């Protein structure tokens, strides 16, 4: 009976939702710590269940597909906050644009070159090139460029967790305490997980972080497909 259950797509769709609900509950229970984003807990739970039940990923994906289907519309949806930011933050355009372009550019180029030099693997270098983009966009671009989507997703989540911890700390060392700087840097370097961290610091930090994350994602989505094959 159990083996029958494990082969049902609907069962795996249900498990995915259950893993997400548990992840969210744990996130809330730990006071929204950036070290336990719901996506991390959710993935860890699914991976654990797949391992224990010896279920191949392909079998899981027959059900996972039902949920994965929504990723496309949700990426399109990012236009809504982006439009609102374009509207409200017009006055500081040049500085914000420069910070997003150079800041995110520096970290991505560093990651790609380090991967090339240390691991010498083009597929991994391309995959890490998407590390600063919010996960749904990173996955879409990695797929398109021939990287490994699952590794890209892991790299993005790890980057977010590291960034959420490192950004406030490093900026304090630089004696930058200003809310807009902290928010924007969190968004550029730690995308959605950084934005969750920014939300704890204040609403101005959160708004700047969300804006920076959306701008970075859009910029990288447009440029990486042309630039990455050229760097790698």
């Amino acid at each position, binding site marked *: 009976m159990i083996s029958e259950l494990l082969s049902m797509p609907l069962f795996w769709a249900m498990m995915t939702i259950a893993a997400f609900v548990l992840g969210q509950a744990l996130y809330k229970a730990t006071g929204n710590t950036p070290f336990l984003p719901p996506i991390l807990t959710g993935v860890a739970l699914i991976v654990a269940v797949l391992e224990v039940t010896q279920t191949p990923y392909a079998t899981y994906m027959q059900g996972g597909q039902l949920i994965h289907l929504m990723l496309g519309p949700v990426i*399109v949806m990012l*236009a809504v906050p982006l439009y609102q930011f374009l509207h409200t933050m017009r006055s500081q355009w040049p*500085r914000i644009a420069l910070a997003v372009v150079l800041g995110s550019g520096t970290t991505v180029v560093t990651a790609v070159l380090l991967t090339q030099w240390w691991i010498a693997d083009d597929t991994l270098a391309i995959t890490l090139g998407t590390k600063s983009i919010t996960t749904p966009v990173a996955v879409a671009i990695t797929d398109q460029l021939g990287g*490994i989507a699952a590794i890209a997703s892991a790299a993005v989540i790890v980057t977010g967790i590291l960034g959420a911890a490192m950004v406030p700390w490093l900026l304090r060392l630089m004696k930058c305490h200003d809310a807009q700087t902290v928010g924007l840097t969190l968004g550029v370097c730690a995308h959605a997980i950084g934005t969750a961290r920014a939300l704890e610091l204040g609403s101005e930090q959160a708004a700047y972080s969300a804006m920076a994350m959306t701008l970075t994602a859009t910029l990288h989505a447009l440029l990486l497909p042309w630039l990455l094959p050229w760097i790698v």
Partner: protein
Amino acid sequence: MPGLLFLLIFLLLGTLLQRQFLLPVPAAIIGMLLLLLFLVIRGRTPAALQQSTQTLSPLLPLFLIPVSSGIVTQKAIVSDYGLELLLILAISLIPGILVTGWIMAGGRRS
């Protein structure tokens, strides 16, 4: 949910454009830019779209679980290069943080 219909229409438009012109940019991103263009021209966000955004945003991590769980198929890479990749991710953040912080704070510091 008419807001979802909006999103699907723009996603389909993005997919068609991508196929037609063989663009290297993902279809969903093209769809997003088309929707952005639509919003800029229209001058405001339709209420239905606003409502869908509020409903769907908190669910984003859920939609990412299936593809991210594909890490189970990448055990070789994780065990061979996991530590290196972790260090690369941590080190590469430092110049990014410094550059972003420096540009944003520059000229603003009193």
